[in-house]
């Protein structure tokens, strides 16, 4: 009744002349009312935190019990440089470590590889052998911290190094906690750090799943990542749909490899982006929890409730930051961090304002960390669970994203599943198109980015301090690699690499063989090179 009166009044008044839609191009109504949640059933659609379908959160207490883990991603230069940064962060109240590796490491190449030149230690820390890992965690007790490692094709090798460092510190692998990203599907779709073709990559991943479920039970074996899909230009909806589709694909492969779903599903975690559109992001996290739980229960018949949970890490959107007026990035990051918290994240990385230029300086990192501490201790956002639950708008948006996600699942299914769809370039094309459309909509001023296409200022030299990686880092790292190669037992190295090759050929679990190689100080490049000989290399499809 009175809604009609409002509608009448509204239609007579003038709206601002912009396109009211979010970043997934979902049209946004001027007002949401109970009419938008007509079929709403509290227990079925939301229920209580810690209860199926977990829309409101994965634990009963959420932040009333414990705040999220404040985990700043960092790493640069030599292992010694990064070790110092970690000690600094732990001293300032950070509660978990998150290792950023440099590009050669991410790509399984040694620091002396021709393609690595100029990139050693630049965007992360360089790791060539176990020796580097020993230095990286020197003086950091592995039983007291949890460590997240952003590493994909060589994930098995880095995990093996971490396990051996633990052994040397006297920490048994059964108590180690942490995460390896180990999510190859999104690499083919978005991040493009690959070595082998998809099928052998999936085999390595299932080997890790199996090994860890038996030997490193507290380790999170895959961090199914939407973050990079988003950074590559996708919409929030695509991030949500593709990430979950990837997740189910890991489940499929695990089951195919003979693992009962409840032995490995509880160790899968997620990693999402937090972008500019505040409410859409919150709805995205809520929808993710609900969708995942539903299919894990109804389709995969998991019994252990832990298999239903989307536990996730969030990083604020690097691609939303601007080089122009960089101080504004502090504010953007604060909103994005708040969205992640209102969405119920388990851990959070807040970006530093200078990240569009270089790796962050200590000062910028501290501001970024303080941003989350502010959200935690000053805003009151952590006082109650899922504060936006029941908001007409947020619930309608959550429903909408869920519905559209299932539409994407159907499309992927039609293409034969995630791996065939990658081979056909489906995801890559979808993401490229969104990226291009977003760029165009900025240029046409349909969407705004302050400092870029709105309220821009005459470009002047930026006056923030930047972290520079000196050229000596590469020289030093190559020197220390040379030293390790000289001092190790090279015939043992050869022997363990041959065993690794055999395992790759005959289908035996690769993890124990990789551990043997690592103990003998084989380099990352040697191990990945050996597997490359057996598995071949991936070539990117041509997609624009």
């Amino acid at each position: 009744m009175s809604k009609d009166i409002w509608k009448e009044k509204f239609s007579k008044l003038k709206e601002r002349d912009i396109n009211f839609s979010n970043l997934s191009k979902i049209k946004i109504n001027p007002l949401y009312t109970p009419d938008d949640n007509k079929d709403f059933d509290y227990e079925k659609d939301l229920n209580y935190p810690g209860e199926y379908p977990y829309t409101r959160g994965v634990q009963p207490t959420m932040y009333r019990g414990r705040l999220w883990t404040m985990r700043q991603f960092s790493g640069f230069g030599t292992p010694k440089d990064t070790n110092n940064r970690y000690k600094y962060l732990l001293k300032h109240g950070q509660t978990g470590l998150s290792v950023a590796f440099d590009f050669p490491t991410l790509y399984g190449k040694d620091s002396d590889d021709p393609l690595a030149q100029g990139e050693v230690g630049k965007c992360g820390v360089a790791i060539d052998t176990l020796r580097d890992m020993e230095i990286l965690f020197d003086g950091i007790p592995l039983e007291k911290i949890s460590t997240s490692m952003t590493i994909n094709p060589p994930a098995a090798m880095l995990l093996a190094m971490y396990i051996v460092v633990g052994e040397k510190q006297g920490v048994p692998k059964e108590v180690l906690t942490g995460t390896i990203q180990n999510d190859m599907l999104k690499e083919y779709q978005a991040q493009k750090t690959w070595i082998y073709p998809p099928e052998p990559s999936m085999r390595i991943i299932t080997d890790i799943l199996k090994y860890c479920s038996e030997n490193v039970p507290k380790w999170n074996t895959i961090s199914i990542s939407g973050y990079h899909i988003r950074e590559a230009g996708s919409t929030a909806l695509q991030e949500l749909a593709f990430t979950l589709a990837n997740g189910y694909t890991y489940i499929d492969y695990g089951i195919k490899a003979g693992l009962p779903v409840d032995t490995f599903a509880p160790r899968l975690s997620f990693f999402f982006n937090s972008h500019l559109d505040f409410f859409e992001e919150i709805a995205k996290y809520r929808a993710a929890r609900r969708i995942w739980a539903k299919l894990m229960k109804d389709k995969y018949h998991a019994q252990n409730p832990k298999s239903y949970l989307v536990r996730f890490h969030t990083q604020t959107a690097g691609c939303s930051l601007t080089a122009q007026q960089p101080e504004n990035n502090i504010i953007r990051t604060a909103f994005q961090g708040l969205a992640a918290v209102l969405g119920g994240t388990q851990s959070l990385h807040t970006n530093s304002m200078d990240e569009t230029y270089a790796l962050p300086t200590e000062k910028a990192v501290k501001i970024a960390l303080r941003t989350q501490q502010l959200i935690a201790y000053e805003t009151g956002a952590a006082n109650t669970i899922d504060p936006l639950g029941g908001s007409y708008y947020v619930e309608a948006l959550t429903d909408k994203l869920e519905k559209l996600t299932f539409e994407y699942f159907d499309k992927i299914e039609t293409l034969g599943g995630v791996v065939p769809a990658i081979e056909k370039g489906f995801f890559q094309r979808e993401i490229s198109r969104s990226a291009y459309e977003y760029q165009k909509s900025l240029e046409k001023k349909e969407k705004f980015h302050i400092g870029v296409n709105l309220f821009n200022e005459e470009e002047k030299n930026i006056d923030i301090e930047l972290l520079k990686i000196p050229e000596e880092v590469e020289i030093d790292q190559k020197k220390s690699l040379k030293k390790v190669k000289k001092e190790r037992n090279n015939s043992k190295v050869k022997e363990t690499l041959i065993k690794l090759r055999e395992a790759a050929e005959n289908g035996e679990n690769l993890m124990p063989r990789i551990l043997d190689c690592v103990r003998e100080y084989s380099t990352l490049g040697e191990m990945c090179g050996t597997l490359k000989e057996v598995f071949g290399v991936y070539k990117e499809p041509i997609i624009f």
Partner: protein
Amino acid sequence: MEKKIRILIGKPGLDGHDRGAKVIAAALRDAGFEVIYTGLHQLSESIVEAAIQEDVDIIGLSILSGAHMTIFPKIIDLLKQKNAEHIIVIGGGIIPEEDIKKLIQMGVKRIFTPGAPTNEIVDYINSIIH
């Protein structure tokens, strides 16, 4: 037939962030240029060889990995060695002001930093080729 501007868009080095490179490539196509895209993870040598065989007017490199001070000089050097200095080198990426100055001195014609609108790049190319 009129002359078409030909541009090679390359991603040297190891970073896989081709979002920018692909957006630029598509925008340049839409502006009427012929764009040769060489894909990810390219050695500087392959990029220069491709640029020569394709007889491009411009090489555009996207580098986000921080390796710009290694890769740009190498490309410029290889072009010199192969008598192909006529090919103009431009770039884009996360490159601090003081490095940009150095790169320009070495012979890189122009560096676009993140956020540069695609039409600015198109206009720039038209202005230097015609």
